């Protein structure tokens, strides 16, 4: 059979297995506007912005119409132009128009499309209701008065994450997106992943900003402000400054943070190395003693614990699996504990107070930092968590030309990290790092792990690795819906695994809700950037990190590794 094609705006465009006309149109290089269309979620067809006109003059939604051979459509006609403008006008008729003081200013899809269609007047009176803001969560802020009912957040929360904290409620003109019984979002099973905010086109759900406290600490004379930067931040932050996604800008980030006034800058990859060692040891212990020491024996695998949204998911949906979640703190919290301990003597001498800041791709980290388990004497180990987006705001506010500044190095004494610590930011990375630790210590083994199937952005991956004569069967999932499905499989006995890595956000931390907005291709570039950074790292295995060896053998971790690096949730 010859090639199938469509005629789009007079241009012949071939198609194969595209599910809808929209994908074919995008292939033809035309970006039809949408509010509710994402390739990773089900098709909803709510916004009607993607409409096209067929030969007979019928207006159809391109997102929910499958392509047909020899189909002729137009994407830009007088009728469509009026139609789209009308939708925007109607949306704006009940929408707040104070763009200059909106959280989403500059990143709002409604604002962008209003500009793109050159909307200079709305013919209808403004019926925007008084906002009732829900800021009960530590991670997100809800303002339903700015909701356009595209349903992106609802589908993200239900389909992709299987959390179901929010859904549509009421009907017709009264319809809103709401948690059950109109409760505050913090009183639901919300896991704080923030993916709803990541896909929200307007400011109806935004990430919570914690910049005020950070600026205050930076301006205060008696504070030592230390900062750690998570692996995934370095491959995404540049996107807001005209740098290609995936380009490793960690050196520039150090420089920018110093210009902002941070006293010492560190890379969370260092403490990721700590996590690798602790978690790998826990795995080896469980493989040997699991049958006796764990409630369900080795029928359930050991799960990673770096992701706070995942931990909360287990707490709310599968509390019986909590003993199987690694007791290792996340790299951020490990570093938090180490830094506060490290500066304690010097602070006491100099009369300073250490304020610990973490720059994360993640909004659940804000919630993690505030958890009781991570406070010692009422003081959190990490005082402020700011996201990549917030750091971008700080850099822009200061006027730093990020794309032009020279890179610099992190501070001593935690300045060295392995490549294993860097790849923590992408799905499969924690697993690969841990396997490097437990596998044979030669380069052949490294390559074997790399090609075993741990890499790639698929939602669920299963891999097998030879380990000292035994075969280790591991699972890697990103997106909590995939984790949910895998757990159900494990519970039914259809799958048996030794070790499972879970990252709540699709594609891992590189796709975190604190990162700049990006479609799938951007996330692919970010993932490649992470592996490239690993490739250029001199030290590949966490256990070969010299600073770390020193810390374990002579430093603070000599006797206190368990106290500082492990946590027992729900106690």
């Amino acid at each position: 059979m010859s090639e199938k094609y469509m005629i789009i705006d007079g241009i012949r465009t071939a198609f194969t297995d595209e599910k809808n006309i929209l994908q074919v149109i995008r292939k033809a290089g035309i970006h039809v506007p949408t509010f509710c269309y994402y390739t990773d979620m089900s098709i909803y067809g709510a916004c009607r912005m993607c409409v096209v006109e067929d030969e007979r003059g019928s207006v159809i939604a391109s997102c929910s119409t499958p392509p047909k051979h020899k189909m002729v459509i137009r994407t830009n006609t007088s009728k469509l132009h009026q139609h789209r403008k009308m939708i925007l006008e109607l949306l704006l008729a009940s929408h707040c128009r104070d763009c200059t003081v909106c959280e989403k200013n500059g990143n709002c899809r409604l604002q962008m499309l209003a500009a793109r269609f050159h909307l200079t007047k709305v013919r209808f009176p403004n019926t925007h209701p008084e906002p009732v803001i829900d800021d009960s969560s530590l991670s997100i802020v809800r303002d339903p008065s700015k909701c356009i009912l595209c349903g992106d957040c609802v589908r993200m929360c239900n389909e992709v994450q299987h959390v179901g904290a929010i859904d549509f409620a009421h009907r017709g003109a009264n319809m809103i997106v709401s948690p059950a019984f109109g409760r505050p979002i913090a009183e639901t099973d919300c896991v704080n992943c923030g993916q709803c905010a990541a896909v929200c086109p307007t400011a109806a759900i935004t990430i919570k900003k914690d910049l005020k406290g950070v600026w205050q600490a930076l301006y205060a004379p008696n504070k030592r402000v230390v900062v750690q930067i998570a692996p995934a931040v370095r491959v995404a932050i540049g996107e807001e400054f005209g740098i290609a996604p995936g380009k490793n800008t960690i050196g520039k980030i150090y420089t920018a943070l110093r210009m902002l006034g941070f006293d010492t800058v560190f890379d969370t990859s260092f403490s990721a190395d700590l996590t690798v060692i602790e978690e790998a040891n826990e795995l080896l212990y469980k493989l040997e003693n699991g049958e006796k020491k764990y409630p369900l024996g080795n029928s359930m695998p050991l799960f990673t614990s770096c992701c706070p949204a995942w931990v909360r998911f287990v707490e709310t949906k599968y509390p019986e699996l909590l003993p199987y979640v690694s007791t290792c703190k996340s790299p951020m919290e490990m570093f938090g504990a180490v830094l506060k301990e490290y500066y304690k003597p010097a602070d006491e001498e100099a009369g300073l107070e250490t304020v610990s800041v973490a720059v994360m791709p993640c909004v659940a980290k804000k919630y993690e930092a505030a958890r009781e388990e991570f406070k010692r004497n009422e003081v959190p180990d990490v005082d402020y968590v700011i996201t990549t987006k917030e750091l971008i705001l700080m850099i822009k506010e200061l006027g730093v030309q990020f794309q032009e500044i020279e890179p610099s190095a992190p501070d001593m004494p935690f300045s060295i990290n392995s490549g294993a610590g860097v790849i923590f930011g992408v799905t499969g990375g924690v697993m690969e790092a841990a396997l490097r630790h437990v596998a044979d210590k030669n380069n052949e083994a490294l390559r074997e792990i790399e090609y075993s199937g741990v890499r790639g952005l698929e939602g669920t991956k299963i891999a097998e690795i030879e380990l000292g004569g035994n075969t280790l069967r591991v699972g890697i999932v990103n997106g909590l819906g995939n984790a949910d499905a895998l757990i159900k499989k494990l519970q039914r006995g259809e799958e048996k695994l030794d070790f499972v890595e879970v990252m709540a956000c699709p594609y891992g931390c590189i796709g975190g809700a604190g990162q700049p907005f990006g479609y799938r291709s951007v996330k692919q570039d970010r993932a490649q950037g992470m592996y490239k950074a690993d490739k250029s790292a001199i030290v590949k295995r966490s256990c070969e990190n010299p600073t770390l060896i020193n810390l374990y053998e002579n430093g603070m971790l000599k006797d206190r590794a368990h106290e500082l690096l492990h946590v027992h949730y729900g106690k």
Partner: protein
Amino acid sequence: MHGLKGEGNVNSQEIARLDDILQKHDYNATLLIAIMQDIQKVYHYLPEEALCYIARKLKISEAKIYGVATFYENFSLEPKGRYVIKICDGTACHVRKSVPILEEFRNTLGLSKEKTTTDDMLFTVETVSCLGACGLAPVCTVNDHVHPSMTPEKAKALIQELKEEAANEN
């Protein structure tokens, strides 16, 4: 940790009642609306605790159940009185003067469009768009019992009658 707010308020007797309803529908989540109708039949409304309980049993999110409960006009999340009076305000009843009847009910019971249930939880007054008994217009129902050809005077007498009935029962 599980978000079953107010689980303590659901006693074992009520749990048994809910389990019966769920069992009748094979714990089938696609029969949610029928299950909710049965619950409303028992309580005259949908108690939050009951919805949270069935959410867990049916493995659907509380938010989804809340969405269904608020979508349909017939479901109520507010407790209703012992006597639910529905006054038809469809076209036929409306032209045959249903509004003065509605006003009579409201005035007698001290109710309004916003406040639909009396404080003693005896009466709830609401309007419906059509009861499908246009030949009997203007019509109202009390707990699904039809009262045809209503007048404001009949309304007043009906309230009195129901009050006495309630007093005798107690």
